[in-house]
């Protein structure tokens, strides 16, 4: 009834009506806005091409990792219809797994993926099975609050164990690459490429494997999926585990770049919401492209409002998207 209606994204959002070609318009508008922003940034920097190239490169590289986190969030939303407020906490958890493995056992940080991903998968299975599955089908506020509680629990457990002092993961010499005059460190490049590879792997898994097909079936029609014999509760568990494993993997891959604190994942939480709304809730490719856009918005926001936090640009994009295209940039119509 009304409860189930409220759960489906289509019932929550009604696209503002407009009578103009549906598919091309948002993309054209995005390009136009991007051009204006680029021009303003050009003026702001007194025509320094180098700063702009640097912003482009840094933005895209960061955006790839944001995209991977958002991919996990959008997957969970698409299938379970819950907004996972603990996403950032799982990113942080990935960072700490890497920190522990590399500082205590001297592992290469990127090698710790083989620990962080399986451990987050297991954690995800446990959380979904014993906590969230019990509250599935109740109001969306309840599941949202559950993930919020889980996020707070993880962050503060980490705070209790590792204290709030920033930690860092050592990598062997960080080489610097030159891309069209802009600099990109090796660790940022690896994080970007790793995130893209994992996103691609997940995408192929969703498209080509039986389990991926089952996940997509549950996402598009849970009742129908149940009728053809798919165990939806099991799919929920798998999806949640996969979703937070994305977050954990992203945490591992950025750990050489960031300073690791119990709240280091928060920024990924916020950007992931923005990206998921931008790309369309439940849209896998939208999350990846949305990630790149948000990475750029962050950098160019920093150029346009130099006194403000970089996140201001991200929030401005967020609010514009929420109001103007709540169904996402890449979905056609409602």
């Amino acid at each position: 009834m009304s409860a189930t209606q409220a759960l489906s994204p289509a019932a929550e959002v009604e696209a503002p009506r407009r009578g103009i070609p549906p598919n091309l318009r948002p993309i054209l508008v995005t390009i136009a806005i991007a051009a204006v922003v680029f021009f303003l940034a050009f003026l702001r920097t007194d025509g320094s091409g180098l700063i702009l190239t640097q912003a482009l490169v840094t933005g895209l590289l960061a955006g790839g990792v944001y995209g991977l986190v958002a991919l996990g969030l959008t997957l969970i939303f698409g299938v379970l219809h819950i907004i996972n407020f603990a996403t950032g906490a799982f990113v942080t958890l990935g960072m700490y797994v890497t920190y522990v493995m590399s500082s205590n056992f001297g592992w290469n940080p990127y090698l710790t993926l083989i620990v962080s991903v399986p451990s987050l998968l297991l954690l995800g299975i446990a959380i979904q099975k014993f906590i969230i599955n019990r509250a599935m089908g109740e109001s969306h506020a309840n599941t949202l609050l559950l993930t919020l509680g889980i996020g707070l629990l993880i962050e503060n457990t980490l705070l209790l164990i590792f204290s709030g002092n920033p930690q860092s993961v050592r990598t062997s010499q960080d080489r610097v690459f030159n891309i069209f005059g802009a600099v990109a460190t090796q660790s940022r490049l690896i994080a970007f490429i790793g995130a893209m590879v994992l996103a691609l792997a997940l995408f192929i898994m969703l498209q080509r494997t039986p389990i991926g097909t089952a996940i997509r079936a549950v996402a598009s029609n849970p009742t129908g999926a149940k009728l053809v014999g798919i165990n939806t509760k099991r799919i929920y568990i798998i999806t949640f585990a996969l979703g937070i494993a994305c977050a954990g993997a992203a945490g591992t891959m950025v750990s050489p770049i960031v300073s690791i604190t119990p709240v280091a994942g928060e920024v990924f939480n916020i950007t992931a919401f923005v990206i998921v709304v931008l790309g369309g809730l439940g849209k896998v490719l939208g999350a990846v492209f949305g990630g790149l856009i948000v990475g750029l918005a962050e950098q160019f926001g920093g150029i346009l409002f130099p006194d403000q936090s970089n996140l201001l640009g991200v929030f401005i994009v967020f609010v514009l998207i929420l109001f103007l295209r709540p169904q996402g940039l890449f979905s056609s119509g409602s």
Partner: protein
Amino acid sequence: MSETLVQTVPSPLRKRRFFDSNIIALIVLVVLAFPLPLLLDQGQEAVAIRVLIFAMLGMSWNIMSGFGGMFSFGHAAYFGIGGYSSSILLVNFGISPWIGMVVGMGVAALYGVIVGWLCFRYKLRGTYFALATFAFAEMLRIIVQSADVVNSSVGYNVPLIQGSSWWLMQFPAGSPNYFWLGLGLMAACLLVTILFVRSKAGRFTVAIREDETAASSLGVPVLRYKLTTIALSGAIGAVAGVFYTQYYLFIDPELGFGAYRSIEAILIPVVGGIGTIWGPIVGSVLLAPLNDITAAILRNPPPFLDFLEGRTGLDVMLYAILIIVVILFLPKGVFGTIKEKVTKR
């Protein structure tokens, strides 16, 4: 249309006396709480005052999201606007926090109405509405954090005065007046909640929460009542912010507008009981002392918890566990569950 409907349908609202059970309970609560500062030591009084601040913050969220059904993830905005309005006026112009409170209530209500109107104009509901309120509150925090006009990330210290003054809302540390002031404000907010819930506006608000289309087709001006509810909620949130600032004598962007404040505003009614008048009170009584209990444990841990000495994070861990347990086992909150059990019998 709506007027005639309301008049022809016999409404229990019309027969009800002013002194219903909620008002009587409020009076009993105030009378019982009044002598507390004389019985408690200074540390316990600080906890009691935090209960009052929590209660106001929780009531504020409860009006908008509990009774109004509009899930807010950005209640820090109202709290921060209140605290900042009064401290800006007090520090820069020497204006009494009482006036600052009225200004803060007005600004918070206005902010709420603008954000709410924008959200409803663009038909945001459910999760999207929650994300939008979150985004606006975070934008406020970011802007305040870097705006020199409002001391950027430094925030405001309330200027200290000699002795005590009700007009400047400042008393010597540990004065029972702080508790009585907070109790008075809390009681006023609670009275407003009670009156709102049983008023026509309150009933329309609940009707809109239950079924917006039906309410609208019966002639209820949906948008107007939604915005009224948000404005009222924002004003109460601002009162909490002003009292907080005057008691702790300090506010900064993180304390005022931080996401954690928004989470607190949600936790209190969730633990107590969403959409019930007494839920936020019960929630604040349960949650506010947790901080001090855990702080005491961490300062001087019992032998088996030795390893925890001097660490932080335990208080929020307990909050988090509490919220998970409450949602799983008492989804209606502590007070909500008790109320349901009693009325079913």
